[in-house]
């Protein structure tokens, strides 16, 4: 509790700093380091405070999610300010009730999870299948229209999905693919293929072409060289790219909402949670359990692959 009080005295010396700065011309040889020292001291106090505050802000909502998912609604209403679960209040029923199928009085999240998993895994496989050759081509081969195609893909990345939502909604309604996971999967592939090509291309660019040339001299065709030389070398990038796609597809909301809303048995976890959170019949703590089930796989995946993933995410940043 003493911590919040510390910055207050520290602010006053800083306010005095400009005065010293003004007077530092002639006699300031001894005084100049004092501004430096003051700033350093202020920052030494501020820095940990800022780090802790940001960390709490970033992590606390997820902690709160897990805590709430183990409490009963009545205990939350009684004591909404509690920051932890008392052991005697620990309630696992929320998870059972959110996972059970609707016919058994649950919310059917097990089915939602299966749907999400199918769509996300399918998107990863399909998107990688089309984007690995594409990225290879953009990186290595010189063909007519290469620049334009790259530009097109980049433009797709920035395209507002709400603008795309209108025609796709109409189109899928007309051909009767609304309510099918396959339709959703195709849309996801189109959304991620561009980013995926961009990320993979950057990695292919770092693999020396001489390796493939050596293989060509040894009698490999180009496709053989690609499969046996470049692909294994690009594995780290491909894995991190796959995880990235998985997260996007697992988290996606708008298109799932547009395409699947009328078919409860096809809902993804995101859609299910958003639809049920509006109703009064389902207790918030039960939905919090569903929310934890939606978030935990992503967080686990993220921490397991964080090093790979962050490298991939910033690959674009270092270019400019």
């Amino acid at each position, binding site marked *: 509790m003493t911590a919040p009080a510390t910055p207050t005295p520290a602010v006053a010396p800083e306010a005095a700093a400009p005065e010293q700065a003004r007077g530092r011309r002639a006699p300031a040889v001894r005084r100049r380091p004092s*501004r430096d020292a003051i*700033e350093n001291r202020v*920052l030494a106090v501020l820095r940990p405070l*800022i*780090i802790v505050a*940001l*960390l709490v*802000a*970033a*992590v606390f*909502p*997820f902690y709160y*999610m897990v805590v*709430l998912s183990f409490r009963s609604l009545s205990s*939350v209403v009684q004591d*909404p*300010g509690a920051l932890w679960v008392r052991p005697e209040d620990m309630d696992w029923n929320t998870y059972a009730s959110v996972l059970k199928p609707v016919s058994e009085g649950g919310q059917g999240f097990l089915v939602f999870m299966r749907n999400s998993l199918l769509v996300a895994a399918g998107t990863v496989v399909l998107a990688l*299948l*089309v984007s690995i*050759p594409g990225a290879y081509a*953009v990186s*290595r*081969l010189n*063909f007519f*229209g*290469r620049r334009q*195609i790259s530009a097109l*893909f980049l433009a*797709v990345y*920035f*395209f*507002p*999905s709400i*603008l*795309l*939502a*209108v*025609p796709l*909604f*109409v*189109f899928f*309604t*007309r051909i009767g693919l609304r309510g099918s996971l396959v339709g959703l999967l195709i849309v996801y*592939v*189109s959304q991620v*293929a561009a980013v995926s090509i961009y990320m993979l291309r950057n990695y292919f660019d770092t693999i020396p072409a001489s390796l493939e040339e050596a293989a060509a001299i040894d009698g490999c065709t180009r496709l053989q060289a690609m499969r046996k030389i470049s692909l294994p070398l690009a594995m780290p990038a491909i894995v991190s790219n796959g995880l990235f796609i998985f997260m996007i597809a697992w988290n996606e*909301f708008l298109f799932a909402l547009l395409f699947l809303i009328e078919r409860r048995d096809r809902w993804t976890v*995101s859609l299910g*949670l958003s639809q049920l959170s509006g109703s009064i019949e389902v207790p*918030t703590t039960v939905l*919090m359990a569903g*929310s934890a089930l939606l*978030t935990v796989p992503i*967080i686990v995946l*993220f921490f397991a692959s*964080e090093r790979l993933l*962050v490298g991939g995410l*910033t690959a674009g*940043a270092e270019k*400019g």
Partner: protein
Amino acid sequence: MSQVAHGTAQASKTPAPSRGRRFGRARRSLRGREEARTGFLLISPTLIVVVVVVVLPILWTVSLAFQDVRLLNLRETGVIGNYELDNFVNVLTSPDFLRALGTTVVYATFGTAAAITIGLIAALALRAPFRGRGAIRAAMLLPYVAPVVAATFVWSTMLNPQFGLVNAWGTDVFGWDEPIAFLSSQSDTISLLGWPITIPTALVTVIAFEAWRSFPFAFLFLTARLQAIPGTLDEAARVDGATPTQRFRYIVLPQLLPTIAVLSVLRFIWTFNNFDDIYLLTGGGAGTGVVSVRVFDYLTARGDIGAAAALALVLALVLGLLVGLYLRLFGRSEEGA
């Protein structure tokens, strides 16, 4: 050693230019044709998917925007139809349009600025290494990687006036007179040092959410850029007696500005079009009705596809204009400097 090698390479290249070049060209054209064919073959699956699922639908949006299409008469409309401007007239003259556009601009501007500012502070605070920094950096990215539906659900539960944690603490510990309906109150009057100030509560809350959710993105890119700044610059400034704030102002910030500029454009584009966050937090009510949520309403609630397409096009055009304007201004200032 490398210099020598370089020299010999150049020497061997210069004597016989004509023969080498002609031979090279002939080979290149043969190989080049094969290369072009393979290249096109490899890129075509992606190209087909993108053209069919992205490019054609967007062209179709343009067509839809000029026709009277409703969900009910959808089956009768084709590419050739009655083209008219009614949708645009309706959408643009609707009394709420300007307010929605204004809300969108405010939301995108403040959301972007807040996210980048917090991201910058975070990147600077975590610049110097210490034990556990890697884990903290990873944890900072959680808001960005977590599913948006889960994040909005936790926020709306935390901010709930009946059993939310924030209001419980606010009334018990900080002495608020009554719980604040963060997500459903259009505006509240608070007194700051005796002055009554009216703030748009729900709009501020969704902006705060946007800042929370996307600061990790700015943090990630700024951290990467910070790591690329040579340490010698900082050291030299330190030897010259520059204080930490001076070093930030004159050494670090100029190096970060290009990255900040790019981030501003990216974040602005995404926030401007953002649908998920606001739809999930407030449903577009309480003064947070941004344009993208209106597009969704036209599309689903009213079933007016033509109007939805027209409004979506207007949104994209306004965004293009704003970004173009920004790039123009920024490009010019870059030239001047």
